[in-house]
Structure formats: structure tokens, C-alpha cells
């Protein structure tokens, strides 16, 4: 099997996705004037970084064999709560701390309920997400106010620069964060346990892996990174918006899958997810640059996701699993 299929390993899939992103960029440069201009590339890097931060949690959760539909709701929650409290005159560091802790609690609850009662995380995270969004709407009466502090805005601003680098601080910070995530997945006991649990949930407890603890920790991490994305998006858009996370529901899943992860668990890597994020960002920019309507962009995105995954994300036939 491995000999016949070029994309049999996760690494090869990630490399494949990076190649697709590069090809798309090449196509954009040829088709659209100014596609590779410094400003356009900077904009793409910022958008890709935001999506990649939001996708960290989805990657971890998918490797473990779960799925997290609460990410868009937690993004909206962090976005609105941070703006509101900062607008009320709170210290922004304190605000971020509070939002982070609340996000960890939300995520932990997702993991605890899903694993300890063995319920589909799809339903649990959806339900918890709806409760969170409802509470935020209730608190702000549907009209969130407030804005981001200047520091956050310039941290993610497309026009910003990080010292000598012509990109905002978000991009180098993200690269450091990404390296840390990869390190945790590849080189720590937590990473090994995550893959083990995803590959074989039945055998993992025999290797003294506590499934409930792993699920609580991983879902908490997922919600935490969603909250980080929410605060960053606050700086990016300038004002609070409860539905700011909604496009991230399917985009995080698509990025993870285009990056070569299997939703049944045990397979995937954060580098792959980053490649998937780049592919999605390139497709979006390319199609909008070619003058497609948003609805047509969406249709084309669906088509391309299916096409890409059929190239290298195919499942094994049942006859080869016996």
C-alpha cells in the first residue's frame, strides 16, 4: 500500500498540501496583477495566521479522535467579552486572563461531558457553544460595545511591522507558537498520548493513559486557542461582533483535513494544518481576486476541498482493514 500511494504518510500529505498552496500562489501571481505585492502577501499572512491559531485546537482534538464545533462560539465569546470589559475600563491584561480562564473552563466542560459519558462530541460542543453564545448575547443585550486596545490592533494590523520585518508582530509570534505546538505534539509525553488515544481509544487506557483527563486538557486547550483567536480578531476588525467566529466553524475542520488529518483520530500534524490553512487562504484570495461573488467563492471552495482530499486524503478500503 505504502509503495503505491505517494501520500501514504502524514508528512507526505503535509508536503503535498504545501505544494498545492505554492502552486495556487504561482497561479495567482500569473493571473492577477499585484497578487504577490508586499501588501497582498502581508494580508494573506495575517489572515492565515488568524485561521491557523483558531485551528490549533481543532488539530489537537481531531488527532485525539474528537471534533470541536464550539470553536466559532468561543471565538465570538472572547471577542465580545474582551471588548466589553476593556470598554468598561478594565485592565486589558486582566481581561485577557479572565477570558482565557473562562475559555479553559468551557473547553474542559466539553471534554469532560463528551468523554466521561461517552457522548458524541459533535452534539456536546454544539450545545455548549450555543449556551455560551446565548449567555454573551444576554449579557450584552445583543449589542456588544467596546473596542480593542491600540496594542492589540497594531499587533495584528496588516500595515504593521515587527522591528525590521515588514510584517506585524502577529506573524513572527505565530511562527514561534506553531513551533511550540509542533514540539509538544512530536516530542512530549502529552503528544504521544494524544496520538495513542486517537489511534486506539480502547488500548490507550491499558497504556495508563487517562482518557477523561486527556479529553478535558485537550478540549480546554482548543477553547483557549479559540479565545486567543477571538481577541486577535478583535484587534483585526476593531470592534466586537458576536458572529465573528462563524466562518471558522467549517474552515478549521477543512484546514485540518486538507492538511492530512483523519477525523477518526490518530493521524494528523500541526504542520499539515498550517499547509491546509495556506491552501484555504490562497484559494479564497485567488477566487476573490478573479472577481467571483462570495457565493461562487464558497461553491468553488467546496469543490476544491473535495478535489484536494480525493488526491491525498483517501480512506482505506474496508478489505484492507481486516
Amino acid at each position, binding site marked *: 500500500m505504502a509503495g503505491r500511494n505517494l501520500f501514504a504518510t502524514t508528512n507526505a500529505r503535509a508536503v503535498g498540501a504545501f505544494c498545492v498552496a505554492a502552486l495556487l500562489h504561482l497561479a495567482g501571481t500569473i493571473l492577477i496583477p499585484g497578487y504577490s505585492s508586499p501588501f497582498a502577501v502581508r494580508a494573506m499572512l495575517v489572515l492565515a495566521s488568524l485561521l491557523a491559531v483558531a485551528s490549533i485546537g481543532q488539530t489537537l482534538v481531531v488527532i485525539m479522535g474528537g471534533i470541536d464545533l464550539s470553536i466559532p462560539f468561543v471565538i465570538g465569546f472572547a471577542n465580545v467579552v474582551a471588548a466589553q470589559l476593556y470598554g468598561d475600563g478594565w485592565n486589558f491584561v486582566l481581561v485577557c486572563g479572565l477570558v482565557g480562564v473562562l475559555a479553559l473552563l468551557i473547553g474542559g466542560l466539553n471534554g469532560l461531558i463528551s468523554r466521561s459519558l461517552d457522548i458524541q462530541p459533535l452534539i456536546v460542543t454544539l450545545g*455548549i457553544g450555543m449556551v455560551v453564545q*446565548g449567555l454573551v448575547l444576554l449579557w450584552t443585550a445583543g449589542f456588544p460595545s467596546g473596542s480593542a486596545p491600540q496594542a492589540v490592533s497594531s499587533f495584528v494590523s496588516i500595515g504593521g511591522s515587527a522591528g525590521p520585518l515588514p510584517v506585524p508582530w502577529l506573524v513572527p509570534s505565530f511562527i514561534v507558537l506553531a513551533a511550540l505546538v509542533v514540539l509538544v505534539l512530536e516530542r512530549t509525553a502529552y503528544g504521544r498520548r494524544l496520538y495513542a488515544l486517537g489511534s486506539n481509544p480502547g488500548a490507550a487506557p491499558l497504556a495508563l493513559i487517562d482518557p477523561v483527563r486527556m479529553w478535558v486538557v485537550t478540549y480546554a486547550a482548543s477553547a483557549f486557542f479559540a479565545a486567543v483567536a477571538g481577541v486577535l480578531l478583535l484587534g483585526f476588525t476593531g470592534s466586537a461582533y458576536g458572529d465573528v467566529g462563524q466562518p471558522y466553524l467549517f474552515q478549521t475542520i477543512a484546514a485540518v483535513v486538507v492538511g492530512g488529518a483523519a477525523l477518526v483520530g490518530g493521524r494528523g500534524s500541526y504542520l499539515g494544518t498550517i499547509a491546509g490553512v495556506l491552501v484555504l487562504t490562497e484559494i479564497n484570495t485567488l477566487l476573490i481576486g478573479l472577481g467571483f461573488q462570495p457565493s461562487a467563492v*464558497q461553491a468553488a471552495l467546496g469543490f476544491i476541498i473535495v478535489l484536494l*482530499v480525493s488526491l491525498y486524503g*483517501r480512506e482505506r478500503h*474496508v478489505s484492507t482493514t481486516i
Partner: protein
Amino acid sequence: MSTRLLSLSRSVGFAVVLLVILLAVNLILNPARFQPGSWGALIGLAAPLIGAAIASTPAILAGRGGIDISVGPLMGFVNAAVIEVLFLKAGISSPLLLVPAALLIGALVGVANGFLATVVRIQPIVATLGTYLILTGVTLTILPAPIGPAPAWLKALAGPWSMLPLLLMFIAWGLVRRTPYYDQLMAVGSDDRAAYTAGVDVTRVRFIAYVMSGVLGGCAGLMLTALIGSADPNIGPTYTLIAIAAVALGGVSLAGGRGGVAGAAIGAIDIFLLQSVLTTFNVSTFVLQIAYGAILVLAVMLTAAQERLAMRGR
């Protein structure tokens, strides 16, 4: 018959209890709305969600991550295609043409989903996410803004005749249950490797499940059209997740091979009645959403707890 009822109640379990409680609460709070005279309109109001839940079931039953998240957008696409393209532009109003057209659209989308998920073997949630995005995009392209009206006969399907499409769906599923295919579907859903070793054509069984989801989704699209009496490109996709929640609530295992259409329908009715109770209290939509999410989680938790008890008792 009684053993079948017993096994149904065991698999659906908590959803039935919830149904009875919610029905009683609704009757006490709002007797006028549940008068026999308004049953037609009431069922018409609940029908699209019930239809969407029923349509989501076969793909989930087929197992190994089988799921069809394109049911909602398919309903929206059928809605737009039937009203905007066939009725308003081409002037076709006969049910003899429109109903088969809707079912055919559903079948074709089901074939596409089935091909991607079983022959190309893309993970089902990703394959149907692809069709989800394509259908949503195409629907918005052919119909950028809501438009009406719908033919009179179609509107009647949300009023006095609202039982008819649901009844037909149940009859169709009842017929499927009588075929050997049904046993193969449940076998593949429970353990595809064992089914394969026993000589079942796993790919074919799963493929047909997606086609069934598509056809039933086309029917649900007609129910949606009947209810809103017009075409609206934005309503369809909202049914997707809530339909899957209804299926899970109704005791259909998202791992496959367990549950059925009756459970899914009961789960959907639960959600509908829950919405109805919460609306009667005249609370803000925000509180509605909180209660809705919380009860959804609580309900699946209680279902899981009850299943554990049942397993222990055996």
C-alpha cells in the same frame, strides 16, 4: 408487535419520555395552539425539521463516521430550484412534475455524496462539507434574495395536508425495512469488517444509504418550501446541525448501526416542542438559545446515562 415496540422504546428511550413531558407541558401552557383544528398547521411547522432528521438518518446508520451534513443546504437548493427555476421561470406548477424533480435533485446530490464518501472514500464529513459549500454557493447564485410565491397545492402541504409527506417518508422507510438491504445496512453500520467478511458489498450498501439520504432530503426540501411558501436561500443550511442533534437525541448512534427513522423523528419532535415551550414563555431569543443548548446537552447526557443503566440491567 409488542416486542418491536419494546425494542423501539429501549433504543429511543429518553426521547420518548421527553416527548410525553414536553407534550403535556405544551398542552397545559398553550391549549389553543394544540387544538385538533390546528394540528395540520402545527405538523406543517414541525415537518421540515422532522424531514431533515429523517433524511440525516440513513447515512449515519451506515457507520464508520458516516454523516451527511449537506441535508440542510440540499433542502435550500431544492427550495430555490423548485420555486425560482421551475415554477417562476419555467412556469411548471404541476405536482406531477415538481415532486419528481425535487426527489430527482435529492437523488443526484445523494449519488454525488455517496460517490465521494464510498467510492472515492473521502471522510464523509469532509465529502458532505464539500457538497454543503457547493450547494450553498449555487443556491445563493441562482437566488440571491428571497422570492415567492409557491404553488397553492404546495402550500397546502404545510396546512391541512401536512401529514402526507411525512407519512410517505415513513412508508418508504417501512418498505426499506422489509428488504434484506436493511439488515445489511445495520450490519455494515455495526461492524463493517465483519459484514465485509460475511460477503456484504460494504461500498454498495453505504452508497445506497447516501442516495436515500439525498432522496429524503429532497422531500424535506419540499416540506420546507411548503412551510415558507416561497424561496429563501438562507434558511436551508440552518437545518443541518439541528437535524443531526435531533437524530442523536432520538437514540440513533452516530457511530452507526443503531437506531432508526422513528427515533430520529421523535428527537426532531422533541426539539420542536422544546422550541414551542420556550416561545410560550415569551422570553428573549437569547434566553431561548441558552435553554435550547443546555437542554440539548442535558438530553444527550440523560440518554447516555439511561443507556448505561439499560446495559447494566441486561
